[in-house]
Structure formats: C-alpha cells, structure tokens
C-alpha cells in the first residue's frame, strides 16, 4: 500500500510540473515493462517456433547484436573455428543478416527479434555475448583497449581454446562486382611481384609511394643517390589497363622538364593504330625529337591481344622510324601475363625485323627472360640486337644470385659486353643498390660457372653506360672512356682474363 501511495504522489508531482504529457509519459514508462514482454513474445514465439521445428534446439546462441559491421565480420572467424571443431549446432542473431548471407560457416541466422536470447536460455541453450568490450559506468565509456586479440576474446567467450585458424571470408554479389570493374575482362599488371613480395634490397617503400612517386623522389632516388648521369625513359601506354596510361610520353616529358639535360624520353608507337597512329607519331617526333622508341608487343588494343614487330603493319612503322632518323627500338620481352595460345612476348619477331632493318638497334628489355635462350640465340646472329638488363639485375642479382650469374655468363657469351645495357626499372627497383651491386659483382668461382668469363672493369664500364652512351650519342668525358688496348694492365685481373679483355676490346673497336 505504501508503495502505491508513493506512486500516486509521484504522479501528482509529474502532473504539476509537466502537465498531462508528463503523466502519459510516466504511465507509459511504468506500464511498458509489463506489456512490452507480451508484445515481444507475440512477435518472437511464432518465428522461434518455426526455427526450432526446422533446426532443433541449438547448443549455442550467439547474440551478435549491438555492435558494428566489423565486429560481425570478426565473428566469422569464430564461426569458422567452431565448424572446424565440429561444433556446428549454433544460431546467430544479428542486426546485419546480409553479412552472413552466403557464409557456409553459419548454420542458422535468426532475425534480431527482442528477447530471443532469453527464450533460448529457457530451453537450455548456452547464450554467448561475444563482445570484447563492456561499458564502464564509472568512466562512461567502453573498457580500455583489450589486452588480447579481439578474435581471441570472442573465441574465449564462445568456449574455444587453443589455436584458432583464421580465414578471411568475402562474398561479392554480382552487383558489387560490376561496380568494381573498370574494363571488360580487366586484369591488373603485376610488375614488381607486389603480390608475391619478391625480395628486394633497399626497397622499403610503403604501398603509397609505390603507387605514386613524386619528382622529388625521382631526383633523389635516381640522380642524387642512384649514381645516374642520364636516364632514358621508356614510354608505355597500356591504356587498356590504366585509365591515364602507364607512363605516357607526356608524363615522361614532365620528368624531363624537371631535370633538364639529364632525361631522354623515348616515344612509342603501335602498328595497330594504322595511318592515324603513324601520323601522330611523326607529329610527336617533331615536337619531342625522339632518339628511340619503346614497343610493348603484348599491349591490348581493341580486340587484339598483341602484335609482332615482324607484322607488315609494324614494318611500315619501322620504316618511318628509320626515315625519321630514330635509331633505337626498345622492346619489352618479358614474362607472359595474359596472351593465351599466342605468345606476344615471343622474341622470334625481333630476329626478322633486325635483319630487315640493319640501321636500327633493337634493345630487348629483360633479355627475353623467361625466354633468354631464345633471345640469346637471336642476338648472337644479329649484330644490331642488344640485351637490356632491366629486371635481369633487379629481380635476380640479389634475390637469386646463382641464376643471375648464369644469366650473365650466357649473355656475355652469346651477346657480348658491347651489346648489354643497364636498366633499373625505377619505380619498381631503385638504381642505387643495382648500380653498386653490379659494380661490386663478379662471376662466382665454382664449377658451374667455370666456363663463364670474369667480368672486367672495362666490361662493367660498357654495360653501365658506355654502350648506352653510344646508342644515344651522349658525349662521355675522356677520363671515363675506355683506355686504348694494351693500357688496361692496372686492372685487377682474374686468372685467364687477358684472353677475354683482348676479345672484348677487339669487339669494342669494331662497334
């Protein structure tokens, strides 16, 4: 009775202060706890009865409501682990049922109906509240940062002990996938082993720098620290894959402008662009005065998945290139990514073109690896075919030294030191460690390298710059030129090296 009198007094006070609105609100507050469960159960029981009839009583019930989507996703690891351990009889109550829509690890998703947890508790199910933090009233905030891994805490609450296997789970709907597509059958180019994390020395770039380096980075990495006097930039379009192109002539020109007198920008052409392309190339040459072009024979263009430099259309462009007085043709001949049965990085086409265009120099970048045997055998027959060491050094010298030594041995034998040119693949690898490493490098001792020549200082000078200087008409100060034959006695020679020096300088005089 006393409590009823107290309630009446309270109501009167509320009425005095807040009027009828206050009285209604107070009555609702007091009545709701009595009526709400009835309302909730009226909604819950039919749904729960159906689920119980269909799936039987669950052993566990995850009350996974009240937190963000990220927490739900973390929970998928817990569910996975339960499945792995054969404890498959559990339900998950969530406010984001769509997150578990295609998740085979979640047996039963139940709607976020009120009091579901209390109901299943009554039938003997163990209810898990998997959250890793709890509200701390004294501080009016969640507990401080958890001291264990969040998933580990969630697992503990779910009764999982020991090692936990994590498997990220992602299901994209057709609509979500189509939103992410940029081109039909789009593929990305994995050029540096970013995916594979090929070991690289001196390369601790964060992903952001890898994706976009600045002119300031370039100046420091290449000219200040990279020991580079002149850089040749190989323009590549690849518009099929890159909205703004890979490294276009135009963008390379901004680099040239930033470092006047130090950067040579090569042009590019693609025989599949026909008459229009030929005209545009000539115009661009008038503007930029190219000394070389870069060709990417595996480039996608409309329906075509690549071309051969020996195609009649390509010959028209080669004729034009020669006619314009451009003498260096760089070709990317590296790993195959897409082309299916037609291998657009095949090197055979260079053989034919090099024979038919003796005035042009064909520099095969990456030395044809993984078809170095094909490339080398062509290069030995064609005096105007060169090996470009880009990727050859970057991907092998440090990471796979024995392979690098054998590659260099073969290139020195078949191609020779006068037709090998350095390349750094800047942006993928920095020149600094490649230049320093190659200058210090020597053909290893040991039986498997015994047929290969040691690398002389003369050969290193040629490969690191003098050969390229010849190709690009760059004047080399007298002190850096190779001394006349017979004056190399001060070099630190390896046994049997004399013979090699003689052969090398003889060929050098010839070139």
């Amino acid at each position, binding site marked *: 009775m006393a409590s009823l009198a107290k309630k009446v007094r309270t109501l009167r006070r509320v009425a005095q202060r807040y009027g009828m609105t206050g009285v209604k609100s107070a009555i609702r507050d007091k009545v709701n706890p009595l009526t709400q469960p009835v309302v909730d159960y009226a909604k819950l029981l039919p749904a729960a009865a159906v689920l119980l009839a269909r799936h039987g009583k669950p052993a566990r019930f995850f009350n996974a409501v009240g937190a963000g989507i990220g927490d739900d996703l973390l929970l998928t690891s817990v569910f996975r682990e339960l499945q792995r351990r054969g404890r498959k009889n559990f339900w998950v109550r969530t406010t984001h049922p769509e997150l578990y829509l295609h998740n085979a690890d979640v047996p039963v998703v139940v709607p976020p109906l009120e009091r579901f947890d209390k109901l299943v508790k009554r039938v003997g199910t163990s209810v898990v509240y998997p959250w890793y933090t709890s509200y701390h009233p004294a501080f009016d905030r969640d507990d401080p940062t958890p001291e264990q891994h969040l998933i580990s805490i969630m697992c503990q609450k779910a009764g999982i002990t020991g090692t936990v296997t994590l498997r990220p789970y992602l299901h994209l709907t057709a609509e979500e996938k189509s939103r992410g597509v940029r081109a039909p059958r789009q593929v990305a180019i994995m050029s540096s082993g970013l995916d594979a994390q090929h070991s690289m020395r001196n390369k601790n770039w964060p992903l952001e720098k890898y994706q976009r380096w600045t002119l300031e980075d370039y100046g420091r990495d290449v000219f200040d620290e990279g020991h580079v006097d002149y850089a040749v930039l190989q323009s590549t379009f690849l518009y099929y894959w890159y909205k703004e192109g890979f490294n276009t002539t135009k963008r390379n020109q901004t680099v040239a402008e930033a470092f006047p007198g130090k950067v040579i920008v090569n042009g590019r052409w693609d025989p599949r662009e026909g008459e229009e392309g030929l005209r545009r190339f000539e115009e661009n040459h008038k503007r930029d005065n190219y000394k070389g072009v870069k060709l990417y024979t595996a480039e996608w263009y409309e329906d075509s998945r690549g071309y051969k430099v020996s195609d009649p259309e390509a010959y028209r462009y080669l004729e034009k290139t020669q006619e314009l007085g451009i003498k260096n043709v760089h070709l990317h001949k590296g790993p195959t990514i897409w082309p299916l049965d037609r291998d657009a990085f095949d090197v055979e086409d260079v053989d034919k073109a090099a024979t038919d265009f003796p005035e042009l120099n064909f520099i095969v970048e990456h030395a044809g*690896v993984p078809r170095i045997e094909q490339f080398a055998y062509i290069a030995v027959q064609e005096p105007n075919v060169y090996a470009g060491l880009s990727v050859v050094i970057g991907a092998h010298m440090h990471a*796979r030294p024995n*392979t690098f030594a054998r590659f260099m041995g*073969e290139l020195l034998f078949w191609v020779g030191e006068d037709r090998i040119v350095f390349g750094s693949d800047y942006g993928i690898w920095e020149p600094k460690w490649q230049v320093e490493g190659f200058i210090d490098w020597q053909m290893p001792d040991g039986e498997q390298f015994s047929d290969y020549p040691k690398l002389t200082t003369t050969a290193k000078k040629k490969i690191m710059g003098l050969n390229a200087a010849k190709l690009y008409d760059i004047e080399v100060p007298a002190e850096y030129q190779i001394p006349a034959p017979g004056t190399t006695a001060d070099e630190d020679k390896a046994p049997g090296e004399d013979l090699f020096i003689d052969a090398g300088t003889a060929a050098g005089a010839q070139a």
Partner: protein
Amino acid sequence: MTAVLRDAVWEALGTVRDPELDEPITDLEFVSSCTVTPDGVATVLLRLPTFFCAANFSWLMVADAYDAVSAVPGVTRAEIELEGHFVAEEINEGVAARAGFTAAFSGEARAELDELRRTFNRKAALAGQDIVARPLVDTGTTPEQLAELRLGQVPASPELTRLRARRADGGLPHDDDAPLLLHEDGTPVTTEQVPLHLRRARLTRVSIEGNSGTCRDLLAKRYAATS
C-alpha cells in the same frame, strides 16, 4: 584402402609436369591438397606461383592432372580444381566438361596447345643433353667421341631416363641406337657442331632452371603463410 588409393593418385600426379619448367607438379608443390573418398572420388586442389601464371600452361597442368587421376584404377571420379588464378573458373569448368582449350576461351585462344607442348618437349630434350653430356665432357670425352655416342652407351642415370622420355614425348629418336646429341629437328650433330651445340643445350638448361627457380620463389612467397 582409401590411403592406398590416395597414394596411387599422388603417384599419378607425379607424372604431370609443368610444361615450361619440366618438373613434376608434386615436386613444385603445385598440389595443395589431394583427397580420395571411400567411393573413389578424388579431389585435387592445384595452386600456382602467381595469380597471372600463363593461362595456356595452367590449362595443360589441370587437363593433364585430370587425365592422370582419372586413369588411376579405383578412381570413380576426378575433380581437379585450380585455385587463386585469374581464369581458374574457365579452366576448371572447361577441363571438367572435357572441352578443348579453344572452346573454353572462345574468341581469345586460337589454337590448341599441342604445339606449345611440343615446343617445351623439344626444349627439355635439348637441355637434357647438357645435363647428360656435361659430366662426360668434364672427364675428357672429345667432340668426336660425343658426336658418335649412342644413348645405349651412356651410363644409366635418372637424367638419361628423363632425356629419353622427353625425346619420346617430342617424337625424337630415343632408343639405344639414337645419338646422344641431336638437333631440335632430330638430325645428328657433327663433330664440328658439338661445341656450339653443347653451348646451346646449356643455354636452354640455364633458362629452364632459372625460370623454375623464380617460380619456386614466387610460390614460396605467395603461400608462405600456409606452407
């Protein structure tokens, strides 16, 4: 019983080679799992060093694995699944449906892969000559002797067995009377040609072994967390 059958399936997978690297896919760790149910359903998961490994090479390996596993007595069904590859779906479905490569990639691939396989067999047969002949050269065998040498006169070794097998695959002479040194077209190598021929054989071997090493490195990095 299932364990015995599983061993037989594994052995069959050991006959499937990466066409470019000329090594069994089991040695290359391209088989990530291999299970056989009591009723003879063999499920094989394959993985490759990169997401973008050439589609044609990948096709050959999945198709060869399918054929090899299907042929094992006791296997009632072979399910070969390539994982983590940009055209895994097309390859898996095409091989399972027994469609040819061009059918699976209609409009994009223009020829079947037999030619590709022949090319790689010829390369392997050339590289194999360096592997077999090098020890002989090191012990003083002369070019004249090498040009005359027959396969039946070479001491038996796994390398010799492999060379014979590649020759057989490539339609080249491989019996005891066949010369050890052969050009890619199957013609014999003359004494004068021996030094250059051996250089070429070694160049080819360096290329294959170099590529193999790169692929192994990439695979190891890619699956570092799981292996």
